[in-house]
């Protein structure tokens, strides 16, 4: 999963040369052998490295505050969303839904690496949501749809159908 995600990220960043990755440990942590130095280990670390290679540092945030927010959601992705026990899925969706209530992107008004990696990480969860659940987590769904249509992001993942109008408005449900 993480490896396909990294090659999609390479494409979306417009990197010409694609890297070969391996994994280590039970958690299948991605590893990138680096000709310039020691190997890079971990999804967030490698993704950050790719963004710098592509000379798009703004994807890691434009200000110190935004950079911290981006790091925070990247960490949330690898610690909370990945290996999320079934009963925790709803907690994660609820938290993201509340957070995204007044936001266009995870770091506010700018698209960042946090959006890309969170989108990849949540894809499997959002695909399996019933229509009612998609409406329950409306802010997550809206953000998800926005990111999957963001130029160059989707790549290896199938699009998820998101209805733009509510099927179950209020009392008719």
């Amino acid at each position: 999963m993480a490896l396909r995600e990294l090659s999609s990220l390479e494409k979306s960043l417009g990197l010409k040369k694609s890297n070969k990755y391996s994994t280590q440990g039970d958690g299948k942590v991605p590893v990138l052998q680096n000709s310039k130095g020691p190997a890079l280990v971990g999804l967030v670390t490698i993704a950050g490295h790719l963004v710098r290679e592509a000379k798009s540092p703004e994807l890691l945030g434009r200000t110190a505050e935004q950079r911290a927010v981006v790091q925070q959601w990247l960490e949330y992705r690898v610690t909370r969303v990945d290996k999320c026990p079934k009963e925790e899925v709803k907690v994660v969706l609820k938290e993201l839904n509340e957070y995204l209530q007044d936001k266009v992107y995870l770091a506010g008004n700018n698209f960042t690496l946090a959006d890309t990696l969170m989108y990849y990480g949540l894809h499997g969860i959002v695909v399996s949501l019933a229509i009612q659940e998609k409406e329950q987590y409306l802010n997550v769904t809206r953000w998800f749809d926005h990111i999957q249509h963001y130029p160059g992001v989707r790549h290896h993942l199938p699009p998820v159908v998101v209805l733009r109008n509510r099927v179950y408005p209020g009392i008719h449900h």
Partner: protein
Amino acid sequence: MKLFVSEGNPHCLKVLAVLELTGVKCDVQHVNHEEKVVPFLSRTVLPALLLPTEDYLFSTNAICQYLSETSGLGTGEDSSQWLEWEATELQPAVMQALHMMVLHGKAAHASQALEGPLGYLEQSLSKRNMLFLTAETVAVTDVILWAALYPVLTGSLLQAGELKAVRAWFERVNLLPACETALQKVFKSKELDVLKGFLHKQPNPLIQQKDNQSCN
């Protein structure tokens, strides 16, 4: 900018030590373990930092990175990898070990949980042969990892006879005045019992781990 911390919370040791080290001016407010500070999170998560932009940071490592960036100290080149490892590999093992040790009194199980991550740290430190993790001088990353390991490496909890490089590195960081000051604020008595209140409020790491195994 406002930092919310609680006593006997090992994560707060991290941010307070980094705050001391970087010298950033910040209003620190002590709250109890149950206080819900970050509005969008379902559980109480401390420490939390309210940014000048009105955003909340609830990730301890993101708070530390922010403090070091605004102080001009930076986190160093290799920091990203160490911080990711800390959050994904070390932290779950430390929480499991503390749970076993402090709440159940099972020291042997605690050591077992830490074997993998401590072995990896020992190997990395002895391979590089530098005074600190990323350089010959101390970096914010050292303080973050020191704080993460403090509850399990201090005192007699762990017999780390084999971990020579880890021990030597840990003692070097331990001597920093910033670490000493932060310790006094979080672990007043220096006994691990001070963590009990915090640990009781955390989801049981043992149950979570079992679930992870069954659904992966």
